[in-house]
């Protein structure tokens, strides 16, 4: 990915990291296709942490998350030969994981939703004491969303995928991804009104001097 303008340092750096990581994963998949177990283990370890984290948060059960991860990589092992490289490895792998997770979540969602409504902390006018506390609340709130909205939120905010990538992973149009996130955000705001507290939010694109990343001054609010 070639360098963008000086005002897009963040995107450039991310783009370069994404490009080199992608090339390495493509190489690993090619080795897995001929039965290389070391390559398989390396790819598994690369994905396990990020997948375990968000799957466990969503299901609250590591055994379910582990089953989804292993079901996904079972398919990766058997179908590595059919990966042509026309999509990014992450899109391919997470696309498989999405389908496996959707079935697993639907089975466990009924039980989870029953318990979680009682577990949400009482709403107060105070914001979360820490990012960790907010993450815990988010985890509980996310479990109340429909499966597709839940997964769209995780793919966007935690795993940092673009709208087009999420559409490829979930096998749906780009507008559907936007709609799912739109509804998810609305529901999360209702469940966590603390998110709407201006004091709890610090805009990160505004530097302390009040200028945006691009160097232009922002109007005072």
């Amino acid at each position: 990915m070639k360098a963008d303008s000086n005002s897009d340092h963040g995107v450039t750096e991310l783009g370069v990291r994404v490009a080199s990581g992608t090339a390495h994963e493509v190489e690993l998949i090619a080795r897995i296709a001929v039965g290389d177990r070391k390559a398989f283990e390396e790819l598994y370890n690369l994905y396990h942490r990020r997948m375990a984290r968000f799957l466990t948060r969503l299901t609250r059960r590591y055994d379910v998350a582990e089953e989804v991860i292993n079901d996904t990589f079972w398919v990766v092992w058997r179908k590595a030969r059919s990966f042509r490289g026309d999509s990014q490895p992450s899109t391919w792998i997470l696309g498989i994981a999405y389908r496996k997770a959707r079935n697993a979540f639907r089975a466990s969602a009924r039980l989870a939703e029953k318990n979680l409504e009682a577990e949400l902390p009482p709403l107060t006018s105070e914001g979360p004491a820490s990012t960790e506390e907010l993450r815990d609340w988010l985890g509980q709130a996310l479990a109340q969303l429909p499966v597709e909205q839940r997964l769209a939120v995780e793919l966007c905010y935690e795993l940092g995928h673009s709208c087009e990538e999420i559409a490829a992973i979930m096998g749906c149009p780009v507008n559907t991804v936007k709609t799912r996130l739109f509804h998810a955000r609305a529901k999360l705001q209702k469940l966590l009104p603390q998110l709407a507290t201006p004091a709890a939010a610090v805009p990160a694109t505004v530097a302390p001097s009040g200028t945006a990343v691009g160097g232009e001054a922002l109007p005072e609010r």
Partner: protein
Amino acid sequence: MADVLPHEESWQLLPWLANGRLSPSERARLEEHVRGCALCARELAQQQLMCRALTEPERVTYAPGPSFRKLMERIDGHRAARVSAARPATARAAAVRMAAAWRPPGLAWAASFLLVFACGAFAVTAYRWTQPLYATHTTVSASAADVLHIAFVPSLSIGDAGKLLREAGARVVEGPDATGIFGVTPVASAPGAAPAQQASREMRALAARLRADARVRWVEPLATAAGTDAQRQPPHR
């Protein structure tokens, strides 16, 4: 200056401004809009907060090693099953020829089978009618199964399996069958030697010990008055 995005479109794209995954042109247009829209500016702050909350490192991480080993056992078990199912071509052809030689055509085969089955059923029923009824002087109370069925992980050797059973206080009384399942009982109790309730307790204790051992892939659920004991999934084929 880039064209400014309409408000509705801007609102929908804010998550990707927060996670840094917009194209440069979209980003420029959206930032221009946010500068002039207090609603979107506040919403952007919330989106960035969510990104930070969901990407911050957690204190608890999950080691991939044990999960990966489980996956490899599953892959190796599947491969072994495929290998054992692939008989030599000549033996397969001979089996097909033999089966063809014994198979009468179509409806005649079905009718013959039904006739044989009906005659057999009639003969059994007629025999039973002619026999006096017997009653035992004692009744056997319902109890847990006398034999517990288990399956080991494919990589376990015979020697290690024997050692595992000795340590768990079990002995083999059945199998292995074609699917690799053994029937075991507690060493301490011979069938009929202990009261049914005690035997049932010993069997459940044995099942619990075997379930706790990672080298045992599957333990048969035991039927109790309250229902079936918790179990692992049956071995993958």
